């Protein structure tokens, strides 16, 4: 089956599922939404960390930019005529997410150009620093338009509830489809070349810095959209939602899933979102158990759940194996 067809089928399935979300227990629904958002976040970080081999620790910063900018956009639009009653809030949400994503991509570009000359640990520290800068800037921004408070500094920002099952998983699907197709295109081989051997790639005529910046900008764009979905789901955001700890959570999903394996990263996002909830019974000890499980998983599978296996290649192999029998 052609991948386009698979994705179209999944999308149709999502539309079908979205019709029954009203019947799901709201707690499960919350967890399911967080899974969808984490899939988008982890898939986009995987493009930077997994496929292009650049170690970024600042993903939550871009998520924060997207969350705040999209929240500003939706708050402005809903108070200026384009309310949630216009076509079920679809236009507001679409504009808000797009603006949030573009703002995050621009930030990614601004951060990427100077810092992507660095490698490995150095890049990790620089992106970590940018994450903190973004957070501190948000903490000190506060303005009012027509008497309505925006951003709200350290106090936090109340956001209209617009995220739905279809938005969250539709976007996750788009992110997966985009990243998968990009990597499997002729052009996308450049990203893998940069990861595998920078010097060799340069010698073959691949403009490595340009590829790194592109990966960074695309990754930040989806992180921004993920942030927008997050803000419009939890309805109340503070700068503390986007600390480097959040970045590390996403990095763990990528590493646990397998650097450069979209399929593994999706599974890791699901697993790591459900695990803390499933462990609630253990109350104070749940984070200890959670961390222990991470350690055990990493010892058992140091290359990640699925190594560097890609989604399509994984199924191609299965098919080949099946054909042999």
């Amino acid at each position: 089956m052609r991948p386009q067809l698979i994705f179209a089928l999944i999308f149709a399935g999502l539309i079908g599922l979205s019709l029954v979300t009203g019947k799901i227990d709201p707690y499960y629904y919350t967890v399911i939404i967080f899974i969808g958002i984490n899939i988008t976040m982890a898939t986009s970080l995987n493009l930077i960390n997994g496929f292009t081999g650049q170690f970024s620790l600042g993903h939550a910063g871009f998520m924060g930019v997207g969350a705040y900018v999209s929240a500003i956009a939706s708050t402005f639009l809903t108070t200026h005529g384009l309310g949630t009653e216009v076509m079920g809030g679809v236009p507001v949400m679409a504009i808000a997410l797009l603006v949030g994503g573009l703002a995050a991509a621009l930030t990614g570009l601004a951060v990427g150009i100077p810092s992507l000359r660095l490698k490995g640990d150095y890049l990790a520290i620089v992106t970590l620093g940018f994450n903190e800068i973004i957070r501190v800037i948000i903490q000190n921004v506060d303005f009012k338009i027509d008497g309505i408070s925006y951003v709200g500094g350290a106090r936090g920002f109340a956001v209209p509830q617009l995220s739905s099952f279809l938005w969250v998983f539709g976007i996750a699907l788009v992110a997966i489809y985009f990243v998968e197709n990009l990597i499997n295109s002729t052009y996308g081989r450049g990203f893998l070349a940069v990861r595998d051997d920078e010097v060799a790639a340069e010698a073959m005529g691949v403009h490595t810095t340009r590829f790194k910046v592109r990966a960074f900008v695309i990754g930040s764009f989806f992180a921004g959209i993920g942030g927008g979905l997050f803000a419009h789901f939890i309805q109340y955001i503070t700068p503390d939602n986007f600390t480097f700890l959040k970045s590390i959570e996403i990095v763990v999903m990528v590493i646990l899933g397998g650097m450069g394996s979209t399929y593994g990263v999706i599974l890791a996002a699901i697993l790591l979102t459900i695990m803390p909830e499933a462990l609630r019974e253990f109350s104070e000890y749940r984070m200890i158990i959670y961390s222990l499980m991470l350690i055990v998983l990493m010892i058992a599978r140091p290359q990640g759940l699925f190594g560097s296996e890609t989604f399509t290649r994984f199924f191609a192999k299965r098919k080949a194996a099946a054909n042999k029998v």
Partner: protein
Amino acid sequence: MNKYFSVVTAVVVLTSATFLSSCKKEGVAEGNDIIIGEYASMTGQTATFGQSVHAGAVLAIDEINQGGGIIGKKIVLKSEDDQSKTEDATAAVQKLINRDKVIALLGEVASSRSKAGGPIAQQSKIPMISPASTNEDVTKIGDYIFRICFIDPFQGNALASFAKKSLGAKRAAVLQDTKQDYSIGLANAFRETFRKSGGDVVSEQAYSSGDKDFRSALTSIRATNPDVIFIPGYYNEVSLIVRQARELGITVPLLGGDGWDSDELTKGAEQQFNNTYLSNHFSVEDPDAAVQNFVTKYKAKFQKDPDAMAALGYDAARILTQAITRAGSTDAAKLRDAIAATKDFNGVTGKITLNAQRNAEKPITILKIVNGKYHFAQRIGPNGETQTDFKTGDTPVTAPAK
């Protein structure tokens, strides 16, 4: 590869299965029990707050259960940790309401997490009582959200009348943190009340969180010769401000709000902190019988002194259970009305009445710092009247009032 596929799928399926089954089990109401939910920061950045509030609530509920429970039922406290994170608070509140079927929520010290959990409680029509969120917006979420602590402006008013009446100050200076809403709110309220009562605010200076040197601001305050200086800030900066003020020869009393409350405040500068006062929710030295009873029981159970958060957690749980008794049922709408009707509740943080805005009208405690220790100085009522007074911080002048 196929092997790993099955292993990983098995792990995912198993985790999901435990997740689903564990929740189902908890969802079953346990017959004759009343289930109350609590979400608190048991771990993470503000873990000390969450743990104290939780300890206070546990103490209150144990007491009630030992006394035979209420309306013929025992109370079960379902507590969920939110790791001091807003998104975790959302999930915790959803779980408590939808899986554990709690009839009411005790929730969150931090205003930001009360604002994340509050809308869910409001939508599900589950009453929620916040023990210590002082931000004004929290109870504006809706008619099911209450709080039992005072709000920020009240502290400024109380400290102004304390400065005017008890310290006899006529000229006050204000040094505020322009980056914190909390500080600005307190400063505005203080200025207004102090002027209204006939005093004069002679100097207004500002700083920003994170500053280290306050000498220029303090020097210009010194030049205006005030009787008292009000510094509504957080302990990190206040600790430096007080040291530098004393070094500059400023000996007048210094005042602050509950943002001062920390073990770190006076460390290494115990002498410099003499003649300073702060407002707080509670004092272990309060001579009130209910307070002393609470302190004894808390010490017996947890082997340490209760702090303000523990006292607020204790009061929140007791106000809730008292409201259930008065409502005579666990019906959400009746319970909401019963909580809203709370009047003259004799709590350990003072006599509490909930007003039409679902905020608490209650007294505030003024503490005097003597050699690095907090001593009970005064209790000021909701309208600025002095209720209990320890003029010098060691002997009671009047008995616990009203």
